[in-house]
């Protein structure tokens, strides 16, 4: 169905090609997962399928890409609209119209299909994707999962044979991600569509894939093959595969179900060993106190009486579905929301009363889009500005950034950094003023495994150095790695507050993969298991 024949792509002004000599055949009806680090060329590979590379992006493509018998050299993306459906990373920025129904019809209108055909296909697509009761809704009022399904539906109405998706679930919470993946699964199995998708959150998708294409980057050859084969030797792997490696299972399991069925001996082996409890052994003094906090909109409180204390040395994970009030709590802690009743105290002050210049000495927040904090034209100038803002000796921020993310050229534009580097730059800027309390909103959005491991190390170091860290996140694996306490919010109230194993092991939505495999034992990460098996009974934790 899709054929790459000795394809190399070089963008204008680049010294080396993004992709070199890619030979790849994706047969009809497969769900093909493209993996690789950020910046390795995954997106370029996907965009070459419908001709956006090089027709839209510029650059030089040598070799041939043939989709359903059409060569992208002779066909522009718009000429492939009824062959390849392409869904970009952020569905909202790809929407042309403003209601669900119109968006579904847009592609067909461009192709000039007769009205009767359009009417019929829109109805069919609404049913296929379960969007029928949303048909009149404005697109901006939809949830993330619904928007992603509309984006998929809007390219399906032209009846393409291939569906290409660039990180369809990376911005979604676990439930919405499942919604989208179930839809894709159905399209592959019921309609025989060929689906190619790139994704960082392997733990979510790898079990559905028929084929994995690893794009290693740096001009190294692309590897493709069965998921188990590719993942067995690959540095990028979800926890279930890592556990498989620890336990010596070959080929490695890809789903919780696979692993669970093979895990009985491992559970026996681990039965006598104490699982590390991940709690902070000796929390320092409290840096923030929230008591009976109510805040939100008129007659619509988002937080309804939340109380909690954050102490030095703790890493507190804030979980809960979208709209539960996670971001609002973080905003209240930096004074962006004023309490309607109750109190917020950070370092003994109400953060809303503090001047910005004093606030940053007490609390730092890395927002969901770290780029919001950045505005200078180079990393070096960004760091100098941060030194000035924080009133610290010059060079402090640069040194911090160098420690968090070594080897980034100082003259690079912040926009050209990878997601992970941008996050660490924002982190360095926030940390320059040494706030005792550090807040992170969805830090792992768009991060690959390498960047995530780095983040975990950084957060552990910060907690060990006496910072209190609170992160609002959907990423259960991150929580399992780094959390010392979990606070679960639902409908603006705290429904659980306790040590990570106590809260997550029995929860169907918040349990990490390892916990699901080894339940009822309270193991959270492959590393814990590996350490325990190696005969070390206690794990040192910050």
């Amino acid at each position: 169905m899709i054929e790459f024949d000795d394809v190399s792509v070089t963008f204008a002004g680049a010294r080396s090609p993004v992709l070199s000599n890619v030979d790849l055949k994706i047969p009809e009806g497969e769900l093909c997962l493209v993996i690789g680090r950020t910046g390795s060329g995954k997106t370029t590979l996907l965009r070459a399928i419908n001709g956006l590379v090089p027709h839209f992006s510029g650059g030089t493509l040598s070799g041939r890409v043939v989709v359903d018998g059409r060569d992208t050299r002779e066909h522009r993306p718009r000429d492939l609209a009824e062959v390849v459906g392409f869904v970009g990373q952020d569905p909202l920025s790809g929407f042309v119209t403003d209601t669900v129904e119109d968006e579904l019809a847009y592609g067909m209108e461009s192709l000039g299909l007769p009205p009767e055909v359009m009417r019929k296909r829109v109805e069919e697509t609404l049913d296929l994707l379960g969007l029928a009761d949303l048909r009149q809704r404005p697109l901006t009022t939809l949830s993330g999962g619904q928007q992603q399904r509309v984006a998929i539906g809007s390219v399906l109405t032209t009846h393409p044979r291939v569906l290409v998706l660039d990180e369809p679930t990376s911005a979604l919470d676990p439930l919405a991600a499942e919604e989208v993946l179930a839809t894709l699964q159905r399209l592959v199995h019921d309609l025989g569509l060929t689906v190619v998708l790139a994704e960082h959150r392997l733990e979510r998708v790898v079990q559905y894939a028929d084929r994995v294409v690893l794009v290693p980057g740096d001009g190294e050859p692309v590897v493709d093959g069965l998921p188990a084969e590719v993942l067995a030797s690959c540095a990028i792997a979800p926890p279930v595969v890592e556990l498989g490696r620890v336990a010596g299972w070959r080929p490695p399991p890809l789903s919780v179900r696979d692993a669970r069925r093979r895990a009985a001996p491992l559970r026996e082996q681990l039965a006598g060993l104490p699982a590390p409890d991940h709690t902070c052994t000796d929390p320092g003094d409290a840096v923030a106190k929230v008591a009976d906090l109510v805040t939100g909109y008129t007659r619509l409180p988002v937080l309804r009486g939340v109380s909690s204390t954050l102490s030095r040395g703790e890493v507190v994970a804030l979980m809960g579905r979208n709209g539960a009030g996670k971001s609002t709590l973080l905003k209240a802690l930096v004074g962006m929301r004023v309490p309607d009743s109750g109190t917020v105290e950070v370092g003994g002050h109400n953060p809303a009363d503090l001047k910005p210049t004093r606030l940053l000495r007490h609390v730092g927040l890395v927002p969901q889009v770290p780029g919001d904090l950045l505005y200078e034209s180079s990393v070096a100038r960004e760091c100098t500005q941060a030194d000035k803002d924080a009133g610290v000796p010059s060079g402090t921020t640069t040194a911090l950034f160098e420690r968090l993310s070594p080897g980034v050229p100082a003259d690079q534009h912040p926009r050209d950094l990878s997601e992970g580097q941008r996050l660490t730059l924002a982190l360095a800027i926030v940390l320059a003023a040494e706030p005792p309390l550090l807040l992170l909103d969805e830090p792992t959005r768009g991060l690959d495994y390498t960047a995530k491991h780095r983040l975990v190390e950084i957060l552990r170091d910060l907690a060990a150095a006496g910072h209190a860290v609170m992160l609002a996140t959907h990423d259960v694996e991150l929580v399992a790695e780094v959390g010392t306490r979990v606070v679960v919010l639902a409908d603006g109230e705290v429904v659980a507050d306790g040590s990570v194993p106590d809260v997550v092991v029995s929860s169907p939505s918040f349990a990490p993969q390892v916990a699901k495999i080894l339940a009822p034992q309270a193991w959270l990460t492959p590393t814990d298991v590996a350490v325990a098996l190696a005969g070390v009974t206690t794990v040192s934790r910050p």
Partner: protein
Amino acid sequence: MRPQHLVTFPRMLHPGAWWLWALGLAAAASRTQNPVPLLLILVVTGFVVAARKSDAPWARSYGAFLKLALLVIAVRVVFQAVLSSGSQGPTVLFTLPELPVPGSTGIKLGGEVSLEAVLRAFYEGLQLATILVCVGAANALGSARRLLRSVPGALYEVGVAVVIALTFAPQLVTDAARVRAAHRLRGQTGGLRAMKRLAMPVLEGALDRSVELAAAMDSRGYGRTREAGPAARRLTGLLVLGGLVGLCVGVYGLLSGTSADWMGLPMLLAGTVLAAAGIHLGGRRTGRTTYRPDPWALPEWLVACSGLVAAVTMFVTVETDPASLVLAGITAVPPVPVVAVMGILVAMLPAILAPPLPRPTPESTTRTHEMEVAA
């Protein structure tokens, strides 16, 4: 009879019909400062909006426009009171402390405020306010966005550009708020430099989104039209442009009432013909089709005509009985222009003639509420 011709069949009326109706009323308001027909027009728009508005977000715009209209009147009256020269009328209401201004400018701050000056300002303000409220009513009843869906094929690109701009503008505002909040976290306070720092990430974000949108549109077949020769394209452009200029001059001539005769109706007609020809010619080459176009059936004709009746009766009154549209003295009791009033009352009929709106299903309303909570 097909159901869309029934005035009882619940559906959304074509937004174009509402805009024609409202423009008719606005045209009527533009020809008089007599408060009787003006207030009547306000009542009529309010009544129809109350009877036929949906619960969509844009339906709230009537209230917003009403507030704006009150502000217009208030500003006008206050300025007149503060800046009026005492010669405007004999009835002095009260005297403000006067501020000395060099004599040659002819401006006076404060001093005596006369009833006549205030009343005149009120009537003038009321006229502008009424026109504004008409636009607000049109916006509340027929979404401007849905109206853009019905633009003819030749103007399709313009329509797309406007829709995208309408989506991007609010997005820019939310982005700016988000980035500002983030900058506060870096310990920065307001000021001119803050503006510069704000512009950079916000514009970058907008640029990124535009590129994403262009890629999405390209891969979904945008611009796959049947090719036309440059000559045909130029002819279409010329016809549409010429037609639109003709329309504008015609409307201006008709509404201003002081310009030469040829600028009115003849120019309007010529412009309409030219524009229609251009649009027809351009529409032939696009090769696009429209999904579920809003039907234009009997209720649309009735609504549009009721607005037209209001305008026509007003224009007839201007010709036949101009005395009933102007006040004998600024403090005199306003006369009642019977024909025009009847016409304006006809424009109230859409409250019944426009089809009722379909009742939203309980499920969709609760979901909307949930979404608001989530947001």
